[in-house]
C-alpha cells in the first residue's frame, strides 16, 4: 500500500517529463535540520548510543567486578571469536531461527485464514473479531502465564482436553519435555501475534479490487485457484511487511519464553535473547552478554536492509 502511494507521489506530472541528467538543486539550510534535531537527539540518546555502547562493550572482557571497578580490558574481537566458536551460540541461533520462522509461518497461515473469514459478512463478525484481538493486547507476561497454566502437566487444560477425548493416554509435561517445549512456546507466541497479522491482512484484502475476483469468476477460476493466483500475489507486499515485522518482533522475544520455560528444559528453548540474559545477568559476564546481543542484532538488521532496498526498487 505504502509503496504504491510513494510510487504515485513520485510520478512526475504529465506533460512535464523529467529532464534526464538534470536535477533540481535545492540546498537545505541548517535551519531545516534544526527542526529535526530534537527528534534526532532523542533517537541517538535512546537507541543509537545504547546500541553502539553494547557493540563497544563486546570488545571488552567485562565480568561484573571489573565492569564496576572500571578495570575492563580491551580484548578486541576475541570475545566475538569466542562466541562464534562456541557451540552453544550456534545452538541458540538455530533455536532462535526455528522458533521465529515457525512462529511467523503459523502467524501468517492462521492470520490469513482469519482475515479471509472476517472479510465475509456473518452475524457476530465484529464481536468475534474484537475477541480475537484480545491476545494481542494482553501483556505478554499474562499471555505467557496463561499458556504456562494451560500446558501444565498436572492440572493443565490442554492435558485435560486431550486425555478426555483419548488423543493422549496420559498427561504430557509439555514444558518439561525437550521435544514439546519449543513447539509450546511457538504456539504461545503465535497466539499473541495472529491478531496483529490478521488486522494488517484484512486491510490488504480490502484493497484488492472486487473486479479482479469477478473477472476470475467469469473465467471459471475455482476458490483455491483464485486464492493462490490472485489473493496471495496481491497480498504479497502486506504479507512481506507482516512477516518482516513479525520476524523482528519474534526474534528478540524474551519474556514469553522466560516465563514459560526459562530457556529450558536444558537448552531446548534457549534462544539468543535468553542466552544473552544468562551471560549478562546470571553469569554476570557483561562483555559476553553484549557480544551475544550484538549477534542478535545482525539478522533482523540485514533483513530490514534487504526489505527497505526491495521496497525502494519497487517504488
Amino acid at each position, binding site marked *: 500500500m505504502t509503496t504504491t502511494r510513494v510510487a504515485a507521489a513520485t510520478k512526475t506530472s504529465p506533460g512535464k517529463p523529467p529532464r534526464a541528467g538534470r536535477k533540481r538543486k535545492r540546498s537545505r539550510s541548517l535551519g531545516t535540520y534544526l527542526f529535526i534535531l530534537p527528534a534526532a537527539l532523542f533517537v541517538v540518546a535512546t537507541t543509537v548510543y545504547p546500541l553502539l555502547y553494547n557493540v563497544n*562493550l563486546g570488545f571488552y572482557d*567485562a565480568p561484573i567486578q571489573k*565492569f564496576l571497578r572500571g578495570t575492563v580490558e580491551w580484548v578486541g574481537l576475541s570475545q566475538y571469536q569466542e562466541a562464534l566458536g562456541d557451540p552453544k551460540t550456534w545452538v541458540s541461533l538455530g533455536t532462535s531461527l526455528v522458533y521465529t520462522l515457525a512462529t511467523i509461518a503459523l502467524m501468517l497461515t492462521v492470520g490469513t485464514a482469519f482475515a479471509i473469514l472476517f472479510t465475509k459478512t456473518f452475524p457476530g463478525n465484529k464481536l468475534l473479531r474484537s475477541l480475537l484481538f484480545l491476545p494481542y493486547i494482553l501483556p505478554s507476561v499474562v499471555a505467557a502465564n496463561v499458556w504456562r497454566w494451560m500446558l501444565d*502437566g498436572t492440572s493443565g487444560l490442554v492435558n485435560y482436553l486431550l486425555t478426555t477425548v483419548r488423543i493422549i493416554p496420559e498427561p504430557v509435561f509439555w514444558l518439561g519435555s525437550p521435544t514439546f517445549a519449543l513447539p509450546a512456546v511457538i504456539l504461545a507466541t503465535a497466539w499473541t501475534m495472529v491478531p496483529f497479522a490478521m488486522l494488517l491482512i484484512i486491510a490488504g484484502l480490502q484493497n484488492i479490487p472486487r473486479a479482479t475476483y469477478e473477472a476470475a469468476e467469469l473465467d471459471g477460476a475455482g476458490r483455491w485457484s483464485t486464492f493462490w493466483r490472485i489473493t496471495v500475489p496481491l497480498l504479497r507486499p502486506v504479507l512481506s511487511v507482516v512477516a518482516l515485522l513479525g520476524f523482528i518482533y519474534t526474534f528478540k522475544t524474551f519474556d514469553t519464553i522466560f516465563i514459560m520455560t526459562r530457556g*529450558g528444559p536444558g537448552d531446548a528453548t534457549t534462544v539468543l535473547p535468553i542466552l544473552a540474559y544468562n551471560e549478562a545477568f546470571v*553469569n554476570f559476564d557483561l562483555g559476553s552478554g553484549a557480544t551475544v546481543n550484538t549477534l542478535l542484532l545482525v539478522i533482523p538488521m540485514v533483513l530490514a536492509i534487504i526489505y527497505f532496498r526491495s521496497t525502494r526498487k519497487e517504488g
Partner: protein
Amino acid sequence: MMNHHQNLTRRSALVGGAGLTAAALAACTPGGTPATGGSGGSDGGGGSGALTFWHYYGGAATAPIEALVKRYTEETGNDVDIRFIPFGDFNRTLLQAATGGGLPDIALINAFDTALFAGSDVLTDLSDRVTEWGEQNAYFTGPWDTTQVGGSTYAIPHVADTYSLWTNTGVLGEAGVEAPTTWDETEQVAVDTAADGRFGLAYCGIDGVEGATAWLLRFLAAGGDVTDFTGDAGTRAMGSFQRMLEDGGFSEGVLTWNEDDVYTQFRTAASAMMINSASYLTSLAEEAPDLEVDIVPMPADETSVSWLSAENLTITSTVSDPDSAWELITWMQQPDVMNEYLPDRNKLPVRTDVAEDEQWQDPVKKVFVDQLEIAWAPDESVSPSSAEIFTAVQAALQSVLSGSASVDDALSTLQSTTDEALQA
C-alpha cells in the same frame, strides 16, 4: 528521487551525528567505579534527603518490611524511602545504579550475592563498625559467614530460611510408611506413596538457579563438594534422582515447577512429600487446615545438611550518611524487633538470642531453626560464580531425567562449566 546536493548535506549531518556518538563512546571505557561514576551521590530514587532502602520482597512480603521501616521512622523520626524491585530485576537494577549513579543507601541483597557485590566495590566495608558494635557472635555461623569477604564484613544478616522435608502423614499412614530420615528411605517412601495419579515427592527442578536446590541437597548429603561433581557423591545423587523418576517416585513435572508450584502440589495432596522452605507455613495453615502434615529435617546420607536461603543488609559504597544507614540496620537487628517482624515474614531468625524466644520452640518451626546449624551456603570463593554453577547443575539434572545424557556425561559437562566459572 533525491538530489545530489541534498544527499551530500544529509550525509554530512549523519556523519556528524555518528561522529559525535562515536566520540562519546570513545571518551568512556565501559563501566566505572560506583564511588566516582554516575551522579556521584546516593539518590536511589529518593532525592528527598531521606535514607534510601531497596529490597526485593514482593507479594505478601512487602507489607511487613514496609511496616518495619515505618516503625523505625516513627520511633526515631528518621525518614526512609523504601523501594521494592522484583527479585528477577534486583541485581540488574542494582548493577545499573552502580554504573550510572543512583545506588540506594541500603540494599537488602541475596546472601549468596554478597561476595559478588563486595568484590565489585558496590558495598561498604562494615568491619570497623561491627567490631565496635560487638554483636557478631550472636549470629548463627551459616548466615554470618555469608557476610565475610576477604576477612572483612560487608553485610549484616537480616533473615534466614532453611529447607526441610514436608510429609503428608495421612498418605504416609495409608501406605504404612514413616517419614524418612535418610535419602535411601526417601527414595523408598517416594515410590511407596505414589499411586492413583499422586506422586511421592515434589521438588523444584525448574530451569535456572532455583531448580538446583533439591539435587544439591542430595549431593551435599552424600558428602559432595560443589567444586567437584564427578566424584562418588555426584554419581550417587544423580543415580538416586534418576531411579526415583524411573520408579515413579516423582513426576517429570518437577522440571517445570518453581517452589510455589511444588507447594501447590503438596497442598492439593498431589504429592505425598515436598522439599521446601519455611516460607509456606502460614499459607498451608490457612489454605489447607485439614491437611495432616509433619515436617522433618532434610534426609541424611553421609552427612546431614540443609540449605541456607537468606538475605543480608548492606550499605552501599555511595551512601550519603553511613551513620544513619548503620543506625537503621542495627535497629532492625534488635531481638524484640526481629521477633515481632519474623512471624509476619514466615522467616527464621539469624541470631541465636532471637531464636531463644518462645515462638521458636514450636515443634514445626524448631525443625527449620535447628537446621540453621547445618544449612549450607557457598563460601566466598564459590558464591560469585554460584548462579552459573547452580544453573549448570539444573541443566545436568534435566539432561539425565529427560534421558538426553548419561549420568557420567551430564556430570562431566557440569564439571567443565563449574571449572570455567570458577576460573573466570
